[in-house]
């Protein structure tokens, strides 16, 4: 039930005598604040009483502006009628006061209109058919279940033995005869390369290092059918780290029988074992 009164220049309508002082203080404080919001002029003393709100038009305006009450349950038509009554009753209405009330009413009507508009329901989000990569990136344990399962299956699988396929494993030693070649011959060959190798930069590497398989292919490509020393095989601008990789690859190729080594007057020489072997055609891994 709404009760709207235009009370002219009278004091605001107060229901309880006990709370008169306190209510007046609140009203004054609210209206003092309303003054600044509405342009230094108080709206006319239109008193509104309903279930949701009791107070002046200025206080209603302020409460709505601060989102303290729900305007959808406050009927505005009687307030507008009271405003018209106020305009009609006064012989010489204060235009500033009337304008201030008009601003307040316009604001309230606009807010009420927006409040009455149907709220659009949020569109159902389409289920993505792929992983949300960004979400996964923040959850390191996303695949933990799968990792645990894979780990368990791997250990179970390791207990089973199947008939072996006819594959040549890189780590299967075909032959490794180092006849008349001493370890010192190999080490001196490596030292010669290491002496002339460029010192590595202390800066972090931009690109990732190649795998040993790739280096082994490179070494096998460099080794020819004729006997050559390790110093002649490596590139002229090789770095120390790469020299180590090259030497390890060379040793591995000797171990798996793809490179032969001999010692001529204390100098280790290397040659490709299979004369018709092409480095690209060599299958280093099974």
């Amino acid at each position, binding site marked *: 039930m709404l009760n709207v009164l235009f009370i002219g220049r009278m004091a605001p309508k107060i229901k309880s005598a006990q709370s008169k002082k306190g209510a007046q203080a609140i009203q004054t404080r609210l209206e003092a604040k309303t003054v600044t919001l509405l342009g230094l002029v108080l709206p006319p003393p239109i008193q509104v009483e309903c279930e949701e709100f009791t107070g002046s038009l200025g206080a209603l305006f302020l409460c709505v502006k601060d989102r303290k009450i729900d305007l959808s349950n406050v009927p505005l038509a009687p307030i507008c009628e009271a405003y018209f009554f106020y305009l009609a009753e006064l012989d010489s209405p204060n235009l500033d006061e009337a304008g201030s009330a008009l601003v307040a009413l316009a604001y309230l009507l606009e807010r009420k209109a927006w409040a009455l508009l149907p709220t659009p329901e949020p569109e159902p989000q389409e289920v993505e058919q792929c992983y949300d990569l960004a979400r996964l990136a923040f959850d390191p344990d996303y*695949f933990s279940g799968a990792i645990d399962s894979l*780990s368990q299956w791997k250990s179970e699988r390791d207990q089973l033995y199947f*008939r072996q*396929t006819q594959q040549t494993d890189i780590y299967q030693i075909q032959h490794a005869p180092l006849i008349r070649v001493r370890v010192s011959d190999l080490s001196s060959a490596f030292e010669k390369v290491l002496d002339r190798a460029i010192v590595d930069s202390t800066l972090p590497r931009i690109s990732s290092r190649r795998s040993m398989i790739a280096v082994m292919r490179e070494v096998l490509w460099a080794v020819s059918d004729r006997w050559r020393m390790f110093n002649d095989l490596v590139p002229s601008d090789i770095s120390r780290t790469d020299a180590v990789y090259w030497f390890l690859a060379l040793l591995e190729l000797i171990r798996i029988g793809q490179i032969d080594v001999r010692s001529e007057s204390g100098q280790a020489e290397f040659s490709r074992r299979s004369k018709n072997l092409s480095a690209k055609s060599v299958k280093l*891994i099974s």
Partner: protein
Amino acid sequence: MNPLDSLFVLLFVADAPATLSNLATTLCFTEGQTEQLLDSLASKLSQVGPVQLMQIGGGYQLSTKPEYSELLARFLRPQPQRLSRNLLETLAIVAYRQPLTIAEIEEIRGVQSDYSVRVLCERGLLDEVGKRMTPGRPILYGTTPDFLHQFKLNDLSQLPELQNVLPFSPESESSNGEILV
């Protein structure tokens, strides 16, 4: 010849998983009949003998029973190929999301992953399966049949379902760019 024994000898000499169609063609049976024979053989082997019939890597293959693993390990001295958690993580991501590029793996993991991918490729668990038709033509990686074999899987559908992760759908890949094989 007993059909069950015929099937057994075929599986005995096979050094890779034998497919159902291949077995059926060789035995001159229908696939349904061959499947029944495989079931009979599997139940027979599970009861007696040191070998068992396994459905693995998209086919059927005989393997030793787990209780003989210690004995066989002493005899064959296999080189243990351990997979670190980083490698398993990369492998799991590729298994669920394949085919995908290294950049996508790194986006999921949040760390550089080219080394992990390279190691997994060298171990034959991952392989290049094509290139994405996007700028740079990045290489797409996927799991190999050896991955299924090494993890006792018959196909990728046996991978465990992850919470809140939708199953892999190849159709979704078309939106990201055509795959150039």
